[in-house]
């Protein structure tokens, strides 16, 4: 699932470089605060372990082909999100520079797709929620079989989004998703099964290796996880069935003045702002941008499935989550400071 530079535009590549770079800096700062040299050595050796484990291949039942472990979820189970993210990012940097596996501009995207989702989404929101404090093989199995495919599918979906937003490939979003998601679901199920067996093996032979990271604060993440999943489903799928009739304001205006939307005023300020908005809106009218000569045909389709609406819904949900989360963090920090000052 390593992306190549040729499929990305500089803007998309640069944006994900900035995002992944910030995540690395944040994780490194958080990890460095712990001052635990033992874990630093462990992180390094476990990163190398992922390389080595990928050499052990196995036959995939029913296909006749062989596969190998990806290792993202396994590393997170063993090290925790921040350390696992750093370890996975370092593996991807070495794969990029030493094996040219994935491009340099695409490195930010690859770190985001292959390290962010298992470490910061699949593990805390799914694995830890399901596995809880227990080291029972059943719960570890259920957690692995759900978290590993989910992490991989999110990464695969992200590859599709990044490629589509870059505009280099002519593959339509729906077709690309149809190619990418089923195959990655199958790979994810095998990854989940192998992760389950490895974690169960370690839980049986060296349970102390797992106790530090699995199961901490498991009950706290259930509610946010449910909200995130509900938001993504609503934005990505339920939005297909949204009514195309005018909303309350448009309906009232149409009733009173006879027109649903007022005409644009021809003043310079309005014109400038409209031009800025046109440039900034990368998903205008909750769909993909249409370019003059090559605009997609506006034929009436029988199916409500609309890739543009899906991308808009999911992107919107994630942006709102990001803004709300940042605001919450800032307010939380300010409240803490005020409380400290009051004491």
């Amino acid at each position, binding site marked *: 699932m*390593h992306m*190549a*530079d*040729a*499929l*990305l535009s*500089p803007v998309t*590549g640069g944006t994900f470089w900035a995002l992944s770079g910030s995540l*690395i800096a944040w994780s*490194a700062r958080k*990890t*460095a605060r712990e001052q635990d*040299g033992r874990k*630093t*050595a*462990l*992180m*390094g*050796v*476990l*990163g*190398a*372990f992922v*390389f*080595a*484990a990928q*050499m*052990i*291949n*196995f*036959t*995939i*039942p029913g296909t006749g082909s062989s596969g190998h*472990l990806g290792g993202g979820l396994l590393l997170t189970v063993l090290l925790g999100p921040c350390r696992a993210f*750093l*370890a996975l990012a*370092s593996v991807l940097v*070495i794969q990029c*520079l030493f094996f*040219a*596996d994935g*491009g*340099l*501009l695409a490195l930010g995207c690859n770190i985001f797709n292959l390290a962010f989702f298992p470490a910061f989404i699949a593990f805390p929101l799914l694995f830890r929620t399901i596995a809880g404090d227990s080291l029972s093989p059943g719960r570890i199995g259920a957690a692995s079989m759900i978290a590993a495919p989910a992490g991989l599918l999110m990464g695969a979906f992200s590859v599709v989004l990044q*490629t589509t937003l870059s*505009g*280099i*490939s*002519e*593959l*339509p979003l729906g*077709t690309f998703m149809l*190619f990418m998601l089923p195959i990655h679901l199958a790979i994810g199920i095998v990854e989940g*099964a*192998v992760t389950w*067996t*490895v974690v169960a093996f*370690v839980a049986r032979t*060296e349970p102390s*290796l797992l106790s530090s990271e699995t199961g901490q604060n498991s009950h706290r993440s259930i509610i946010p996880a449910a909200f995130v999943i509900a938001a993504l489903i609503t934005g990505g799928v339920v939005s297909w069935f949204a009514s195309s009739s005018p909303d309350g304001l448009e309906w009232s205006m149409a009733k009173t003045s006879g027109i649903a939307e007022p005409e644009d005023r021809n003043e310079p300020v309005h014109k400038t702002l409209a031009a800025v908005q046109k440039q900034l809106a990368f998903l205008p009218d909750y769909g993909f941008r249409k370019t003059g000569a090559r605009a997609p045909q506006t034929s009436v389709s029988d199916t409500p499935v609309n890739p543009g609406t899906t991308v808009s819904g999911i992107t919107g949900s994630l942006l709102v989550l990001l803004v709300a989360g940042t605001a919450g963090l800032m307010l939380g920090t300010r409240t803490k400071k005020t409380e400290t000052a009051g004491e």
Partner: protein
Amino acid sequence: MNDSGNRHSQPDVRLPAGDRAALSVLALFILFVVAVPKNNLPAVIAYGSLPAFAIFAARLPLKLVFWRILGLLPFVLFMAAGNLYFDREPAFNAGKILVTGGMVSGSVIVAKSLVTLTALHVFSLCMPFHRFGNALRAFGVPALFVTQLQLVYRYSFLLASEARSLQKARDLRSFGRKGKEPDTAAHLIGSLLVRTYARAERIYMAMSARGFENSMPAAETPSFTARDGKTVAVSSLCFIAIWFLFVP
């Protein structure tokens, strides 16, 4: 990256500029190549002449570069095939052959991949890994992350040979596909993991005895010299010149 672990297969190359300058030139080069519009094949070929020149000038092993790149092409070819299928608008005629827009943009995707991957290989074959770490430190990358990179790189060769031994032992006891099922592989990975932990403990104790304090000691990174500045400036001018010549 070449290092003591695999130096026997790597040429000994002296870079004309410092490591930070080399890294900056590589990043700029890839940025220029990626920014070429999706239907402009001549510009990508023109940029491709630069890593090709570097391969011959530094006498890098062409075969090694070729085989490594070949293994990475399937996904790129799949994406290029998508362009071929979905964009069938005629672009121009080459003799009796009608060339479609998809053929042009598909070949640009493949060409861009070849050029950027070759540039990465040239870089990795010319710079020892420890110097790459120092260059990253000089760019302000967190020390913990650089330490992590160095540890992963150092121990990946060691653990890889251990994994190979495990796999060989399993293969000797397997018949056809029997014995190579995912659960057997998972048990091998599990024992490799337990051994890795034991090794990490030994490594940490040895590192602590040598004064390790949460980050690897780094050699003093030389400052960004005037020569480095000139190298970056001349390279940028070359890239800009190619852009103006080939991108309308």
